[in-house]
């Protein structure tokens, strides 16, 4: 008994501003009962959750509301019209827990909009079913309806009339009414006129060709998997792995595009496509928000998003019409210690309410066994696909296919690039970048030059070679002596790590041998910290005295080579 009392006390304290208690005492019981009556009369009990507080208000018959207003006017002496809205919000929070705090807050701040939103009658009819199909465009329409609505008392619309306040902008962004855009340029851009420029723009990694060469088999595999799932109307998972730059995302995207085209003609069942990238999220739970955003166009908090998705995928009443294909890129970022997000994403396909097909992409082949928990691995299933790194022949084919129609490249040059890249990583991006650089080098000589072996060699040299030898050559004389001193100290002791006092002794004798005026400790320390900054030496970050530990970060042979040539 006592606990309940205290609870109520707490509640009233928390819910109200200092001005409101009187008001609540007077009106709240009666209002509550009236609203509840309205609710029971107009809606089925099963629809409780789908109702927002605003809808509720709207659904309520007007007489009750009019009473409200009158009482308010009477009461106006000691309080403004605020209590009305306070009442609404507290009431709604009591009855509909699922509404988030954020929404409640916003409503309190700018109540005008909310009471307005409910007006458009056509939306409310099928809202329960169609809620998830809102597109931004529809939202815009809705906004218009709000402002041209005749029967309301004219009030100055805050968000449109004056300059938009930041808070209203945020609200619009969250609702998806503002479409994000970049400023557009004022002048027209230069066109690709010379063959080299055309070649360069075709060689850019962003230029994705219509069909991907050398990935026909993988394309076929993914296509048959997706088609099978779509026709069978069941959910499923697939795991794709491969080192970066082997065309995983590009292949999946092209398959999905192919399917979308086919869906338009009716060859395959229609579906929705959601695309998720782990690296583009600030934290794993934002995955829910991103999925909901792509389904509905609205941004909500992750808790809300999670419950919405739970409803879609597990509750019978909220069945979506269309199957969903979900692509999860960079899966390993979403895996945290708890793995709740990845578990949920892989668990939904097994519940057969709404059809969900999940394709996951990551780099390592054994990620499911290494990183994921057993129950997650088992849900991921065994439908797996590995993208091998490109061989030099495939790389050559990719580049030549992109250059189709422009004969500005020497075929041998392309082969050289392909062989070099295939021997290192088999990364298609790398090969394309090197070719593009070679084209740039050739362009300096003239617009119509053929890209030859020498250009490619220069590009390879710039992009693959190590800069350390050049860096050592360009050090000052003292710094070169320091490097030599470290090497001879390492050779003397046989241990890789040396301390400054020993290096300094060696440096002094080296200077004496070479006829170089001896330097003080301060200068020597300065030189060492400079070498440490560009990582030719590894030095202690903490102490800078005689016991500073120094490790050579280049091979001694590099130093000898760099210093000998002079």
């Amino acid at each position, binding site marked *: 008994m006592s606990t309940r009392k205290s609870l109520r006390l707490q509640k009233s304290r928390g819910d109200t501003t200092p001005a409101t208690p009187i008001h609540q005492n007077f009106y709240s019981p009666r209002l509550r009962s009236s609203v509840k009556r309205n609710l029971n009369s107009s809606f089925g009990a099963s629809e409780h959750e789908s109702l927002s507080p605003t809808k509720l208000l709207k659904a309520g018959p007007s007489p009750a509301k009019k009473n409200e207003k009158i009482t308010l006017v009477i009461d106006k002496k000691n309080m403004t019209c605020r209590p009305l809205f306070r009442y609404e919000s507290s009431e709604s929070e009591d009855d509909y827990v699922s509404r988030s705090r954020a929404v409640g807050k916003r409503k309190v701040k700018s109540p005008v909009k909310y009471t307005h939103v409910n007006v458009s009658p056509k939306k409310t009819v099928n809202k329960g079913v169609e809620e998830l199909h809102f597109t931004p465009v529809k939202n815009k329409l809705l906004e218009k309806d709000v402002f041209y609505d005749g029967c309301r008392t004219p009030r100055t619309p805050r968000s449109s009339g004056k300059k938009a306040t*930041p*808070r209203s*902008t*945020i609200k619009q*962004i969250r609702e998806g009414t*503002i*479409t*994000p*855009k*970049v*400023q*557009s*340029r*004022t*002048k*027209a*851009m230069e066109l*690709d006129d010379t063959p080299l*420029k055309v070649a360069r*723009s075709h060689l*850019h*990694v*962003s*230029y*994705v060709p219509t069909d991907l060469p050398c990935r026909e088999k993988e394309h076929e595999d993914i296509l048959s998997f997706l088609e099978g799932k779509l026709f069978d109307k069941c959910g499923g998972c697939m795991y794709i792995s491969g080192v970066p730059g082997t065309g995983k995302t590009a292949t999946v995207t092209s398959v999905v595009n192919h399917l979308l085209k086919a869906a338009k003609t009716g060859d395959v069942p229609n579906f929705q496509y959601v695309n998720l990238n782990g*690296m*583009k*999220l*600030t934290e794993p739970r*934002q995955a829910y928000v*991103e999925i909901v955003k792509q389904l509905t166009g609205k*941004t909500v908090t992750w808790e809300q998003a999670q419950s919405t998705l739970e409803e879609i995928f597990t509750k019978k009443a909220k069945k979506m019409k269309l199957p969903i294909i979900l692509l999860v890129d*960079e899966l390993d970022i979403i895996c945290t210690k708890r793995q709740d997000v990845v578990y949920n994403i892989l668990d939904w396909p097994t519940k057969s309410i709404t059809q969900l097909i999940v394709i996951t992409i990551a780099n390592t082949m054994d990620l499911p066994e290494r990183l994921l928990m057993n129950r997650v691995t088992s849900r991921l299933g065994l439908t797996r696909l590995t993208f091998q790194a490109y061989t030099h022949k495939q790389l050559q084919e990719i580049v030549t296919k992109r250059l189709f129609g422009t004969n500005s490249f020497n075929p041998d040059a392309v082969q050289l690039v392909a062989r070099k890249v295939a021997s290192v990583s088999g*990364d298609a*991006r*790398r090969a394309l*970048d090197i070719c593009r650089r070679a084209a740039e080098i050739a362009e300096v000589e003239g617009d119509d030059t053929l890209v030859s072996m020498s250009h490619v060699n220069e590009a390879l040299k*710039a*992009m693959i070679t190590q800069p*350390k030898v*050049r*860096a050592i050559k*360009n050090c*000052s*004389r*003292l710094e070169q002596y320091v490097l030599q001193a470290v090497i001879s100290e390492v050779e003397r002791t046989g241990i890789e790590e040396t301390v400054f*006092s020993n290096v300094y002794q060696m440096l002094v004798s080296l200077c004496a041998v070479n006829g170089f*005026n001896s*330097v*003080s*400790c*301060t*200068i020597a320390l300065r030189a060492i910290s*400079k070498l440490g*900054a*560009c990582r*030719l030496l590894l030095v202690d970050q903490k102490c800078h*005295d*005689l016991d500073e530990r120094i490790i050579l*970060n280049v091979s001694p042979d590099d130093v000898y080579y760099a210093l000998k040539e002079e």
Partner: protein
Amino acid sequence: MKNLSDKNVLNLRKFLKNNILNNSDFVGHEDERQQVFDLLHRTITSGESNSALLIGPRASGKTTLVDNVLRDLQPYFSSDAILVKLHGLIHTDDRIALKSITAQMNLENAVDGKVFGSFADNLTFLLACLKSGERGVSKSIIFIIEEFDLFCSHHNQTLLYNLFDVSQSAQTPICVLGITCRLDVIELLEKRVKSRFSHRQIFLFLGNDNENHLDQRLARLQKYFLVPIQQSVDIAPSFKKQWNSSVHTLLKDRNFKSLMQRLIDLDLSERSLKNILLLVVSELNNDNNKLAYDTFLRQVELFERDETVQVLQDLSVLELCLIITMKHHCEIYDNQPMNFEMVFSRYLKFANANSNIQTVERPVIMKAFEQIENLELISPLTTGNSTVQKEYQLFKLLVLPHQITEAVKKITGLPTEVTQYANSSLV
């Protein structure tokens, strides 16, 4: 008359300092500059997305180069491009960096430089914005990221991944130019980020391999010091002539050349040269209104001096004696650590043997020992271990023997016994 020449010297000093400090033109490294210029120019004019790294040791003119290039591209920034500058020391995590990007790009969720919404909101909105743009329609965006290596330590490298990803996909044309002094910066990138980076590295080293550093530097000095005759600097023409001729004679001086050579051998960067030049110029006054070799020599000696010796010279005799005692201890026991008791007993032997040395109380010596510790001439071996009493805590000496001899040589009026004690070897 005197007043007039006074004014001349003042104006000259002002002119020279301004010339040395606020000199923003970029000399040398034509290839590298052209490469950076081409890169940015292509991004702006033909909407090509790019990424590159500018790598070079500290004080090699990386920022100067970029600023120089950006100044040439200035006309584009009002119409066709947006410039976004980030710095690793200011934007210490992705959250702050993202807010700054949003504000600098002037997106919808930023009002007067203040950015609204959470981190996740900002990222999604920025990516959506960049995705909505396309080649040829939207403005190019140029990201200049200084201290690029510090961005590699951010959580998951989210920002770098997203920027590089945009630069490799058909979205808004952007150019990401990282500036760093670490040669191995590419190894800091995660494999996905590394794959998206275009591997275009532009190296900027201090010297060019084949050029003569000395000639280059003398030319640079000439540029700094010569006062143009035509330009309207408020100095009397006769004084200008006199000054310029003094500069010419100095630059031809052999001693001066060897001094400059020495400076080049020690440090190639122009920043250390500028520091010395500023000090030299500050010394110009009415009586000393010529550029003299002696002033340079003094400044270079100041530049080269040993700081520890300087500290040793200012010690009291007692403190110096203690240091000498410590040196002896190190020599005998081969750099073994010592505590106060060891030093004290060894010092007492010395003090008792020489009647001229005033005997002082133990607390006074303890005080002197603490003073030495505060100067960090000795450092405790274990830190934070409070169980050991002060007298028995172990220390190591941070002074080299030759520094002590040097200091003893330089101090005037040191008692003979102390000098002898310093020079005596106990081994």
